[in-house]
């Protein structure tokens, strides 16, 4: 499903948390959203998910209004609730669930838990898991209904290195294989540069750059937006690698 935002704006009273952003996310591509703290990344994702009032135009396949087929994963907040992992992931298929849970729903949940390597967690209570395990469970929830739009807010922030790579590879597989339009907020610039097909760089609510990772993340952008002096290297398979050297001047978060 193609997502088109034009002059998308979100106001929190006088503050424009998202300021007239034009953006396109197409099926089969991962759009990484990067930027410093407070630059409006999470708010942009909430705006696209239909969770905050917006100004401007937001179209899904050319039509306004939030479609049902969105998988949304907000930033991790530990819920204190007596729900097990299998129940939490089932909720990802909320729109399709009847009072009795069908075999098809259980199979879909089982498949996504297997794919993320957390089938063994199925009977555990969500409140008993580590931050990284919880993140994988909520990613499974977002994937459980095979949505045509995936909106992920920092999906790998609590994961160890191996799980980060596994999740990013899974997202590429899902996005490219099923033709999903995936938008992921990422703090790790190397992960963003390595796995996203396109990047959007935000700064104080505005879109500073939008394009291929190599075009978005250069020395000038890192200095101006992040206040960081960095060296950019082209690694194996043409991947952009950012090596931070030090801070430049005074920078306000």
């Amino acid at each position, binding site marked *: 499903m193609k997502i088109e935002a034009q002059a998308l704006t979100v106001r929190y009273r006088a503050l424009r948390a998202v300021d007239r952003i034009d953006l396109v996310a197409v099926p089969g591509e991962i759009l990484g959203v990067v930027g410093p703290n407070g630059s409006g990344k999470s708010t942009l994702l909430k705006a696209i*998910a239909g*969770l905050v009032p917006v100004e401007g135009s937001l179209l899904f396949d050319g039509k306004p209004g939030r479609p*049902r087929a*969105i998988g*949304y*994963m*907000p930033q991790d*907040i530990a*819920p*204190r*609730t*007596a*729900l*097990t*992992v*299998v*129940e*939490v*992931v*089932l*909720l*990802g298929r*909320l*729109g399709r*669930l009847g*009072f009795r*849970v069908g*075999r098809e729903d*259980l*199979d879909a*949940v*089982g*498949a996504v*838990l*297997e794919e993320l390597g957390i*089938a*063994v967690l*199925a*009977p555990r*209570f969500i*409140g*008993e898991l580590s931050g990284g395990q919880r993140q994988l469970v*909520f990613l499974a929830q977002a994937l459980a209904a095979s949505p045509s739009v995936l909106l992920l807010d920092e999906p790998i922030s609590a994961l160890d290195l191996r799980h980060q790579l596994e999740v990013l590879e899974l997202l590429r597989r899902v996005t490219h294989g099923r033709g999903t339009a995936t938008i992921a907020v990422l703090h790790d610039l190397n992960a963003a540069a390595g796995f996203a097909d396109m990047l959007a760089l935000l700064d104080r609510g505005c879109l500073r750059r939008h394009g291929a990772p190599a075009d978005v993340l250069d020395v000038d952008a890192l200095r101006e937006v992040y206040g960081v002096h960095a060296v950019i290297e082209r690694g194996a398979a043409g991947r952009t690698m950012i090596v931070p050297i030090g801070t430049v001047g005074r920078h306000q978060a």
Partner: protein
Amino acid sequence: MSDGPAAAYGRLAARRAAVLVLALAGLSVAGLLDVATGPAFLPVGDVARSVLRLSQDRTVDAIVWTIRLPVALTALVVGAALGLSGAIMQTILNNPLASSYTLGVSAGAGFGAALVIVAGPLLPLPESFAIPASAFVFAAIACAAVYLIGGLRGATPEMLVLAGIALLFLFQALLSLLQYVASPEALQQIVFWLFGSLQKASWGKLLIVALVVAACLPVLVRDVWPLTALRLGDERARGLGVDVRALRLRSFVLISALTGVAVAFVGTIGFIGLVAPHLARILIGEDQRGLLPASGLFGALLLSTASVASKTVVPGALFPIGIVTALVGVPFFLWLILGNRRAFW
């Protein structure tokens, strides 16, 4: 694919079913004991035969069908209504202390009842219905006020809880004022009403309570999955496509009806709405398909057991049920929350 998640879900479902069946069995026993106990103890076998219309003893039939069965069934239905409303309240307010008793709804009903006792019927109704009608209306007013005041700041769980506590103090103050100006006879009547008593039960009143509870059930069945999603927090629920504001509003209407009709006919009964959902949550978790029926069943079981206790603790004496539920409820509640190792809240 391994059978892990499906097997895990199967075990959960089996556990849930077992708990519900056991609660139903306990409920049947408590209900029969409730009918059997009273000034004259009737053998449980005779009670069972009479209830099943197999008895030949007209005296037993008269005691059971005219006096005790309406009381026992009212305990079950009112207990179920209080347990259900407590569970819904705790779920939509994301707060373990939420119940109609702690958030001013019961206090509103108490004020409504006291108003009629002191000032006379506000509508041309006999007193036996004017008092419950006023209690029901003021419970609904309290519920609406909690939602409207909390709604001024976005109807978040925190704001709604604070609004409920403010309402509790308001209605308690108004109730004290009425008690202050009441005649000694009216004051005695108010105090007795506030104790809570099942002895006002009749077949007609039971029918009204049962119909209201039955009318709420289809809405609850429709909302079980959205309510379960709400336990993951507002943002996640909205991300899953739940219209959280509409769900809260709908739930408040249900709480208002369930609590209003329950306390209207039996007075303010505390702790059932608080304890029953906790007991259900500990035994079968937060999937509302299990939690809501279990909360209703445990509410019915607790009130029915309290009814038996109110007649048997001191032989020959009948304690007001509200006092018994509080006395038994407090230590039971402390045992529940201190003995439960999993931190769900």
